């Protein structure tokens, strides 16, 4: 126990200042009242859905949970069930074998809800595109509010996208 406490004290606080929302990432305006967005903005719960990615974007979603970015410190947390979620964070391309699962996850998420598509493949289909096995971008399957490009998008970009989805419209 002594060693653990010593290491924690030696490490100190690593969390950096969070980035601001990037409004240019928003692709859809939803009729969600400012009041709800205000509430979401203070306690947002996210369900991540990997709908067919190469697992690159997932590495950066993990990184967002590290002490440096401390997403929990912003009141944002990841939950295990879509029924507990306000937002789906979806990576792609959406494989056709995940199409049904993604739609069901979307349906299981209570309204009002937000969707952030992550990564070049989630935004455009990327290198995989659309084919016999791939539906391409996330918005081909479910409505998307914010798209965060990148291969993979770094943690700050992911945070900017998530914050854009819950920030008051300009």
């Amino acid at each position, binding site marked *: 126990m002594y060693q653990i406490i010593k*290491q924690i004290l030696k490490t100190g606080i690593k969390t950096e200042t969070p980035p601001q929302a990037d409004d240019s990432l928003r692709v859809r305006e939803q009729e969600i009242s400012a009041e709800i967005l205000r509430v979401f903005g203070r306690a947002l719960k996210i369900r991540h859905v990997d709908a067919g990615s190469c697992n690159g974007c997932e590495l950066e979603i*993990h990184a967002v949970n590290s002490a440096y970015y401390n997403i929990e410190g912003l009141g944002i947390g990841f939950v295990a069930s*879509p029924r507990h979620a306000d937002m789906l964070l979806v990576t792609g391309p959406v494989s*056709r074998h995940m199409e049904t699962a993604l739609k069901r996850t979307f349906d299981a998420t209570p309204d009002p809800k937000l969707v952030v598509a992550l990564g070049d493949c989630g935004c455009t289909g990327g290198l995989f595109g659309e084919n016999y096995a791939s539906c391409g971008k996330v918005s081909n399957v479910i409505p998307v509010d914010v798209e965060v490009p990148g291969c993979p998008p770094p943690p700050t970009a992911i945070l900017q996208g998530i914050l854009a989805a819950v920030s008051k419209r300009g």
Partner: protein
Amino acid sequence: MELHPLPGAAPAWQGEIAPHQLPACCEAVKNRGGRLVSLWGTDRRHLGGGFALHVALSDQPGLVCLSVPLDAANPAYPDISAIFPAANRMQRAAFDLLGIAPAGAADTRQWLRHGSWPQNAHPLRKEFDGGRVHSHDADVYPFVTVTGDGVHEIPVGPVHAGTIEPGHFRFSIIGERVLRLEERLGYKHKGIEKRFESLSLEDGAKLAGRVSGDSTVAYAWAYSMAVEGIAGVTVPPRAAHLRALLLELERLANHLGDLGYLGNDVALSFGFAQFWRLKEDALRASAAAFGHRYLMDLVVPGGVSRDIAPDGAAALLAMADALEPEVRTLKAIYDEHAGVQDRFLTTGRVTPELAARLGLTGLPGRASGQAWDLRAQYPVAPYDQLDVRMATHRGGDVAARVTVRFEEVFESLRLVRRLLDTLPGGELRLLISNVPAGALGIGLVEGWRGEVLVALHSGKDGAIERCHPHDPSWQNWPLLEHAIIGNIVPDFPLINKSFNLSYSGQDL
């Protein structure tokens, strides 16, 4: 049988045999202690042939690729899953994608095909239009059911509870104890192999680097090695050195992340916080040196796409120097933490005997006495000058897989320093031109999960005729089903994380 050496850095030979000779050849290799590395098929009908099955086996001198011509009208070959159990899912995938069938196989259920294309259509046949979308077929998969007093099932996935790739796990349990686990994968199948065939040899490296994004260096290197073999190009020493540096940085980052999650999964969130801080430091140093946190698109056919930044070496050395004592401190904390060791020890055990019989490979293999590491056994430049110390243990449990990771972190840090110390000058990339058509190139790289193989059949004018990327997860997923038997359900996430297998890499 006559074997001829395949040109290139990988120690590989090829030979052609008739279908009826296949089982005896496999038996002979198995009896010499060899293993099945990969299995794939090709469509040669447009070239005036039929189909072909290719089986890559690890034998004494290196990799032996057996090519088996198959009849165009009735493409069948004798089942080899009775000899190499790991062949089971590979054979089923080869049937789904190409329609070549293992005669006499006990398990002929679909594997990569769910409902996205009809049973009688095979995407890797040349006449199959990759752009055409078929209507969803009914997707019925007969799981093996366990019956008896008090037995019940827990279905999990494809959408899991954490930030993990999608797949389906069917647990049959009695009380808390797992009687049987059956995996169903293929949810991430996105047509990678078909996509390769629409790309040039040059562009293929980008796709290879996205077969499994966490192993982008390993795949891009294996792919480039295959191209260079066919083209007869030997990469410049500086490029080879930089590739090894990238590969060790990739191993380091992934192992640090896993060590954090393994702490987290036994309720030591301190471990997650500490290791993910260190991982972030490693990623930032990688970005400072090479411009990308995960080192994507740096390994390209002919060499590397960019040099290390002027202050890159200093950034990486500073990271390595800061990291090493911290990891030693954290290892001591993990080793001495009674709660952690109670969960790690004896959990998810794969005995060395079972590992050898079923073909466990890579990192989990080395934790179960399977002493294979390409960097040590078949070192390609610059590993031939590095004397890589292989980490092997016989415990076969979560604790052993954690120990292998720790030892490999320290070895990778040593290699990073040594590579930076001895980085030669010179060119970064040679031009690849005049690639002969109809040739087979093999790339073989020890990624952080295990051996990544890329088999490349060249087409005309720098086109890709066929490309098969193989992830070691093909071999290791079936062993996870064994590792969980007799353990309690809450230990599954821990055991699963201790293997950390790729979904995308095997779903293709």
